[in-house]
């Protein structure tokens, strides 16, 4: 190659490590993640924004799993139409999941990417963990 480019310029920074926020099962099997602040993120992000993110996610998942009139009506309708309604209609849970995906994307853009972190939607992991990717911070040369 006639021109050399620094790898750093061309690619995203290398992944330093990953933190996994586990599920909080203290209230049963409802989808809830632990708000405990992992030590690996101490030097990257403050406790407040992190907890806020997790808390919002928990609230969104609680909304998705809520046993309300909406979900009941949806079930009745599905039953009456021999579940063919699912071919055209999106379920309540899926709607909230889309909302969550938008929220995570938004958080990544505004809060986490500037700090060298990246949230992964927990649905990709079967709602078992929230994966936070920590990127290397080459600018400071810490080699983390």
């Amino acid at each position, binding site marked *: 190659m006639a021109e050399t480019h620094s790898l750093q310029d061309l690619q995203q920074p290398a992944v330093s490590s990953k933190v996994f926020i*586990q599920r909080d099962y203290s209230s049963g099997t409802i989808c809830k993640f632990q708000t405990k602040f992992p*030590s690996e993120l101490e030097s990257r992000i403050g406790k407040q924004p992190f907890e806020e993110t997790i808390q919002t996610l928990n609230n969104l998942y609680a909304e998705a*799993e809520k046993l309300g009139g909406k979900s009941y009506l949806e079930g009745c309708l599905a*039953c009456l139409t021999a579940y063919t309604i699912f071919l055209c209609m999106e379920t309540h849970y899926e709607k909230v999941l889309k909302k969550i995906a938008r929220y995570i994307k938004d958080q990544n853009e505004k809060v986490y990417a*500037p700090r060298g972190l990246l949230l992964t939607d927990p649905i990709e992991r079967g709602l078992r963990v929230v994966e936070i990717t920590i990127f290397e911070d080459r600018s400071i040369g810490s080699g983390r």
Partner: protein
Amino acid sequence: MLGGSSKSGGRGPSSSPLPHTVIQTSRPLRPSRYVPVSAATFFLVGSTTLFFCFTCPWLSERFSVAVPIYNGVIFLFVLANFYMATFMDPGIFPRAEEDEDKEDDFRAPLYKTVEIRGIQVRMKWCSTCRFYRPPRCSHCSVCDNCVEDFDHHCPWVNNCIGRRNYRYFFLFLLSLTAHILAVFGFGLLFILYHRQNIDRLHAIVTLAVMCVAGLFFIPVAGLTGFHIVLVARGRTTNEQVTGKFRGGVNPFTNGCWKNVSHVLCSSQAPRYLGRKKCVRNVCVQPPFLRPQLTEIQLAAKILDNGIQGDLHRSRSSLEMMESQSCDSEPPPPPKPELRYPGITRGNTEECSLLNKAPPTPTMYKYRPTYSPGKNHTALTHAYANQASQQPGFCSQPSLDRDDASDRTPGGRERSEGSREAGGGGGIPGYSLGGHSYPSFSDPTVLSGVTSGTSSSTHTSAGAVHISEATTSASFKSLANQTPPPHHTSRNGSLSYDNLLAGSDNFNKVAAEVAPEVSAGRPCTPAAASYSSPFLSSQQRDAELHSQSPHHHHHLTNPHHRFLHRSASSTPPPHPPTPEREHLLALPPPHHHHHHHHHHHSHHHHHHSSSSSSTSRPPRFSTPHLPTRHGYPYRTRSTDAPLGSTSTTHPAHSPHPPPLGKSLSYSSAAAAEMQYRLVRKASASAGANAALSQMKPLSQTNGGQPFFSPSFCSAPSSPSHLLSVSTQPGLAYTGAALQQSPTHKPQGNEVKKVTGLGGTTYEISV
């Protein structure tokens, strides 16, 4: 339709809740799987078709057109639910990716305990899917998938019934029962009106359909009633059949009404497999923002340096340890009085030692060899019992610390001395702190020690090495996660956070122990001193135990509660599993080493007089210590719990008990170690009496009960765990060992360690 189709995957990603099957590319086609579903389909569709063709026309004429319409609607309902139950993804978890697994590393506990509404629930490691199964999740062997809220695998629909399709299965059963009733009833009506023309084709067909309906009605109605009860109680078939909540409390129930509404009215759960992968186009580029260090954080950092850490240690040892463990730079060694018992190095290793391992029995997942299925049920109750007995699991390290500090200022000194005395031995002593669950921490400590000592932790030298590596690794990661807020949960029941934190601490302990052991191992006197107190204490324990066979019942110390309960709660272990056999294949000398470590962990008081009885210890310890890196402990520990669960094992073989039944892993491991150690010691010393006494002792709960009374010259109950016996009679013990706590060894330095009940021991360094 429904019967013969195999699961085919690869459809485009969509969020539709309609059945979305997955391909099992490597699974061979098994035609036998499709026989039940084909038969079910045949009978259902065939019989109903005949009914509609032969019976319904006359009925609609004779009575009303509503009859076939009603039957048609019900049949449609049956078909729709049958289709959904058959083809819908039950809630399969996708396999965990490689990087998620790294945290658990090669060796990690087989079980993780989590508290759900105050009830300890065990999460098992799934070796196929490579994650800890969430509560109520189970791995279906037929489908080879972990299924969320696993109910059962239904052969009639050739599908697992899980969270997503349980509703359809339940409605299928209800509608099928209604359909069978309708078909049988209307057929009967037809026959009653055609008694004279019974030889007509229509009547014959109707009779045949009635027979089929009558035949299927009893099992279907029975199953329907069974599931109605399950739904009302909020249980899955799996839980009901395995008796998980028999006589206990179901943490997953919300009351009958809420349970029913959850099954029928909740929104359709999402699919995990085959989802559209969201394209992440977020640009992550340095420079990155950094959080501002607040004053609190700065103060914490100062504390972490250990300067003020010593001052806080007595108060909140766990917190201090956590902060230290997070430090990148090792704090300066604390003063001997304030140092954690037995720890001479002021670095993260100390923290790991201080942070005791979580009470989860360390059933290490030997991934290549371990067969999870065997042990699951067996261990369920055992572990659940044990877990339930240890509500304060996470708090134990801090409790130990606080108790130790509260009890005697010299306590730490002593444990510290013991640690110095015997490298690895001291470390276990430290971790035990004479309190609570030394048994649990022992395996991890020892494994950590061994892993530390052997640089090639992941060599194929044996399961022991492997287990060592895993232990240390797992504990390491766990130790790093210990959070300061851990405090609040310590006093209470075990929480998932605590579990993680505990395991972090444990890892650190393991890491710390390893260097200690390596330091101590080459040194013969250290080894000697390491081993001798163990032997002597063991022998004394054996002696005492024989004298007071039911002493373990007096264990009322809350710290030992779990040990006590675990001893009494589980039945004898099952036959060894393949993993166990693998462990058993380890050479015998490892046992001794194993016992050494384990025993030390339980008896952090290393009697100063140990050095005096050098004849035995060197023979006992020296040949073994250098060869074994303490790994056998890990392997053995997996086996040990099984043996230790039973309080009466007079005829129990010296082999490690099966893996399946561990109530108290650490206690069992301790018992195992003690048993073997004593056997060796008694064999060499000729104290056969002690051996026979030791045998049943080792099978008791963790062996600690018998240790404590035998050793303790202090009050019986608190001194259960680590008291040093002052009673003579154990042939092995030298005179020095049997002395009162104030006996001074003729060794070099003497460290004073205080065990439970205030008994102080002096350990020669």
